[in-house]
């Protein structure tokens, strides 16, 4: 059997017509759409689109939050052999011009007035965009632009067309082949234009099914669809896997009610980027600080217990009877109510990915009994490359290659992937396709990493940023600056870090302290300071940061591949790295090269063995004026450790 998305839809509608497919909270009540009702809506939209002139191979742009009728629109396009192109709903109008022009888009189905306004704005530069339909008519009553109509009108037209051509829909669905293009996702290129990643029914369905088998997902699972539908992860979790498994996808009432809806639905399968988990933990911490003394004491005790027993329990390791009893008590009083408050009481499988997640954050969720795991994948691989098995979740790996996936590590450290889920191509961009797809079917991820002793893949950095130590005791060792910097940034006191070491004999680093965290820390110790610069150069602060760096070194020493990346010397910068000064990108990533150039004297001082260095820097103030800051920065040596070999 080789399924397609519309084929899967019709299968569910035939086999379990009354089972819920989608739920949407509207006017305070969860409204359910069954598989048969959904199939009817899809059929109507497909017929309407066909009547409007959408044909096989054409693109249909879909923009909006997760709304049942937008999902139905994507299915309708696929039923006709057309290709849905979901775009990010919070992008500015100008950002739509490229994809709409690139994919020769004539038809768009969008959520509401906000998106309609953007579509009308881009029309001037995209003359082919003839028809725009909107799901929510609010505020659009007085719009009279040509080609603009409510989705209801499209559905009505579809019903009429369907009545005249009764066999049309089934015949169109039957024409679909697994190797046909199913969807296109634009990835934001860091350089140049976005690239349209082309996926077929086959690639998406294969990966969705492999992931579902890995985690034993069934039709009984529940998912909350709250991330942008234009992101392939959202498409996999609430579209591809939804159609493969037949579970229920729930659409929140609005973006601002997601936390409330999460609690009401209690999903069993959940994905969130690390920042969401971090935000949740912060809100718990803040509320606990406001709680009474007894509650706080109880919480602290229970959490200490959870940290001690929880991870072993989740890893399926033996736990003594008395500890099991203690944990059960903690579960009764704290963990279960906490999971409920967070909306995680029914979560069976939770994933995070996208950025590095701090070990404390990761352990917190696992210790209170949430099966939080990591995965590795990208738009080009239809997400699922590596997943962590239930009992083997680690904060610093991304899991094992799942069925169908082959992994190869280049001598440069770059990870290559071969799997049935690889992209077909980049749309109209054979050069870019050739860059990432090798002749024998491997995909170049651009990520550097390795497979550890337990068979888990570990991602350390972007391949182009990975360097080598040159000379000295660690000659030839791998140097992964971002990996080291992330480890430093997991400490609340460290806001930014910049590591140097490529083609040098040791690793040195610049540290930016976190003003709030270190300021609080200093206040508690009655440490007076007059501002950022002064605080950063306090002897005690230097010691605080040195302890952090030393812990990172101990951690790195346990990792035989990266033991050479231990930090020998560092200094705390006297000013915050700032995008206005060209030291960070607008998305707050450190621009290592620009920083090294700007602070050349400091880098030299670190490597020349000086104990302090005077520096004058020009800074740009927020009102556009420029000024100079000068300071003498202390340089601190940190003990490094001998590599302890494989820890695992």
């Amino acid at each position: 059997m080789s399924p397609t998305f519309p084929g899967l839809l019709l299968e569910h509608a035939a086999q379990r017509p009354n089972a819920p497919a989608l739920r949407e909270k509207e006017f305070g009540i969860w409204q359910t759409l069954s598989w048969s009702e959904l199939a009817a809506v899809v059929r109507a939209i497909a017929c309407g689109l066909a009547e409007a002139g959408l044909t096989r191979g054409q693109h249909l742009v879909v923009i909006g939050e997760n709304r049942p009728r937008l999902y139905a629109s994507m299915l309708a396009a696929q039923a006709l052999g057309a290709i849905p192109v979901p775009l990010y709903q919070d992008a500015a109008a100008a950002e739509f011009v490229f994809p709409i022009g690139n994919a020769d888009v004539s038809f768009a189905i969008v959520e509401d007035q906000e998106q309609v306004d953007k579509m009308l704005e881009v029309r001037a530069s995209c003359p082919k965009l003839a028809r725009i339909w909107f799901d929510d008519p609010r505020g659009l009553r007085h719009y009279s632009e040509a080609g603009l109509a409510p989705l209801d009108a499209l559905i009505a037209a579809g019903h009429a067309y369907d009545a005249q051509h009764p066999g049309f829909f089934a015949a169109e669905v039957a024409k679909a082949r697994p190797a046909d293009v199913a969807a296109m996702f634009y990835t934001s290129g860091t350089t140049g234009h976005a690239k349209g990643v082309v996926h077929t029914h086959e690639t998406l369905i294969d990966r969705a099914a492999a992931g579902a088998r890995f985690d034993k997902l069934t039709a009984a699972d529940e998912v909350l669809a709250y991330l942008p539908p234009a992101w392939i992860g959202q498409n996999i979790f609430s579209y591809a896997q939804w159609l493969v498994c037949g579970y229920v996808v729930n659409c929140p009432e609005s973006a601002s009610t997601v936390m409330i809806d999460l609690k009401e639905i209690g999903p069993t399968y959940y994905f969130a980027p690390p920042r969401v988990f971090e935000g949740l933990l912060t809100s718990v911490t803040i509320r606990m600080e406001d709680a009474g003394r007894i509650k706080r004491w109880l919480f602290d005790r229970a959490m200490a217990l959870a940290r001690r027993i929880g991870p072993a329990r989740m890893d399926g390791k033996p736990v003594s009877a008395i500890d099991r009893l203690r944990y059960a008590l903690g579960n009764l009083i704290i963990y279960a109510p906490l999971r409920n408050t967070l909306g995680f009481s029914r979560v069976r499988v939770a994933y995070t990915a996208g950025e590095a997640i701090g070990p404390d954050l990761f352990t917190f969720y696992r210790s209170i009994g949430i099966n939080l795991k990591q995965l590795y994948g990208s738009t080009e691989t239809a997400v699922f490359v590596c997943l962590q098995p239930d009992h083997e979740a680690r904060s610093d790996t991304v899991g094992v290659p799942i069925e169908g996936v082959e992994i190869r590590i280049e001598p440069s450290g770059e990870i290559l992937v071969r799997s049935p889920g690889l992209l077909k191509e980049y749309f109209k961009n054979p050069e870019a396709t050739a860059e990432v797809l090798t002749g024998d079917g491997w995909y170049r991820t651009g990520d550097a990493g390795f497979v550890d002793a337990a068979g888990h893949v570990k991602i350390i950095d972007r391949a182009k940023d990975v360097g080598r130590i040159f000379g000295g005791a660690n000659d030839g060792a791998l140097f992964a600056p971002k990996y080291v910097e992330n480890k430093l940034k997991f400490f609340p006191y460290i806001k930014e870090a910049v590591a140097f070491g490529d083609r040098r004999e040791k690793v040195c680093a610049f540290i930016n302290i976190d003003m709030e965290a270190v300021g609080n820390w200093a206040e508690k110790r009655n440490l007076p300071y007059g501002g950022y610069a002064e605080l950063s150069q306090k002897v005690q602060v230097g010691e605080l940061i040195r302890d952090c760096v030393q812990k990172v070194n101990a951690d790195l020493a346990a990792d035989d591949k990266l033991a050479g990346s231990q930090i020998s010397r560092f200094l705390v910068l006297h000013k915050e790295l700032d995008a206005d000064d060209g030291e960070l990108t607008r998305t707050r990533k450190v621009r290592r090269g620009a920083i090294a150039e700007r602070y050349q004297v400091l880098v030299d001082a670190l490597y020349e063995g000086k104990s302090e260095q005077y520096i004058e820097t020009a800074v740009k103030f927020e009102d556009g004026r420029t000024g100079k800051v000068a300071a003498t920065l202390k340089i601190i040596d940190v003990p490094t450790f001998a590599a302890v070999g494989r820890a695992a």
Partner: protein
Amino acid sequence: MGTRQPGDVVLDVHGISLSFGGVKALSNVTFDVKEHEIRAIIGPNGAGKSSMLNCINGVYQPQQGSISLRGKTFHQMNSRQVAEMGVARTFQNLALFKGMSVLDNLMTGRNLKMRTNLLQQAIRWGAAEREETEQRIVVERIIDFLEIQPYRKTPVGRLPYGLQKRVDLGRALAMEPQVLLLDEPMAGMNVEEKQDMSRFILDVNDEFGTTIVLIEHDMGVVMDISDRIVVLDYGKKIGDGAPEAVRSNPEVISAYLGTVH
């Protein structure tokens, strides 16, 4: 605002004079409000704006003059009777039950529409239950309209001020009024909250066809969203007309705008 088409006179205020003891709050004020328009009453502090609103609302009984609503004149009418005639209002200092949820506050706005009695509602059975469901549908539409879904179950007292003002507007809207009186809807708000509120006022006017009479201090807001403006000073009407006309009226400039600059 080219899409709005003001129609017949809905509210006719004629020769209103109101005094408290020796203090003349309003003297011989006459103006009208047309169907589907946004009508603003402006003026410096103590000009008599709130007194005027309270007269329309039936809270104060003016000594002279008449107010008629759709041709029906009333002299001695209390605020409940006015409410039953389809006039709802919001308050400058908010009139919400702070300990109750947003939802419950809006439900109180439906009280006039309930036919079942207190006892039936207390045991919530049969007709009362069906009725509550019907009323809840209306309230949910308002919650959706004002985009306050995240706060449905939050006690009003815990919401920031700007949101409380929005809930107060929702409570007034729950009465499905034909004429909505807004008493300084933007008072104490920051710029963003003011923009939101302006949008909601325009949307109410547009989507529900509600006629709106508003008192406001913020000149920018008034000029932007009103169709016609009445200017009061020391209880007398000194100007009346479209925003551009009012803006260039020398008497208005000296009385009101003059004091600002």
